[in-house]
């Protein structure tokens, strides 16, 4: 009898070489984020550092957690989670900003 095993509906995953390249990119971004913070090149360093962190998080999600080949359901649910968190943050700050 044919049984549906992990291998058949598992998403394809990145090649080891790709994983190593992604790791090198992550270490590169780590260097960049420290440079941005320490060299005082811009007054927007906190925002820039959070953007770099988001870039690193995206690399980990897409390649290490192989979100790229994950089912549409998981991608949509991740979107819903991020959207929910964003709404919570915006609503909270809409209070904090205008509080006297």
């Amino acid at each position, binding site marked *: 009898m044919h*049984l*549906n*095993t*992990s*291998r058949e*509906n*598992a998403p394809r*995953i*990145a*090649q*080891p070489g790709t*994983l*190593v390249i*992604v*790791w090198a990119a*992550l*270490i590169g971004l*780590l260097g960049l*984020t*420290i440079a*941005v*913070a*320490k060299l005082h090149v811009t007054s927007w*360093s*906190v925002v820039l*550092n*959070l953007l*770099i*962190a988001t870039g*690193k*998080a995206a690399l*980990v*999600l897409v*390649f*290490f*957690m192989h979100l790229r080949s*994950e*089912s549409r*359901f*998981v991608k949509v*649910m*991740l979107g819903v*989670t*991020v959207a*929910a*968190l964003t709404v*919570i*943050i915006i609503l*909270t*700050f809409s209070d*904090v*900003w205008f509080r006297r």
Partner: protein
Amino acid sequence: MTTKRNEESIDYTGKKIGMWFFLFTEFLFFGGVFLLYSIYRYRFPADFHQGAGEENLVLGSVNTGVLLTSSLLMALAVAALRRGRSRLSIAFQAGTISLGAVFLVIKGFEWGAKIAKGIYPNGPALLRMSNGGILFFGLYYTMTGLHALHVAIGLVLIGFMVRDTRRKVIDERNFARLENTGLYWHFVDIVWIYLFPLFYLIT
């Protein structure tokens, strides 16, 4: 192959979705703590800048590199197991555990240095600080502590995976358990990716 094992490997999609749902709750859990940090940082910007100056940037950066590298090894462990290379996978899993342990040891030294300076709940140095400073270090201990707890749990889980891989409970046909453990480990890595700039780079 026994019937039980086939049944176990049958619902791969269900196992993965279950893990992702758990991770979504974790996203919101840490999201709440990050929100708390943002509000207090908005109210006490100067104290937070000063507090971050107390952090050891070298140790923090090294620890970030250690955790990113451990994530690479975990991803490689999954790739190796899916190719049927159990022994290689075990080696990568052991490497992940070692780096995770290094992370906790470095974290321990950081906490130790702060405690020695009197920065701990009700500690002499902490009580001399402004309200914003006390909040900064309260959040520092809470957030890095919660993260370290997750790292410690991850180490135990990967330890079980080493055992399961060795016993051939998981292999190239049935690897969802290792993948899910990997997802957890990468999530913990992502949390640190955000903690690092917030506590070490805002001086």
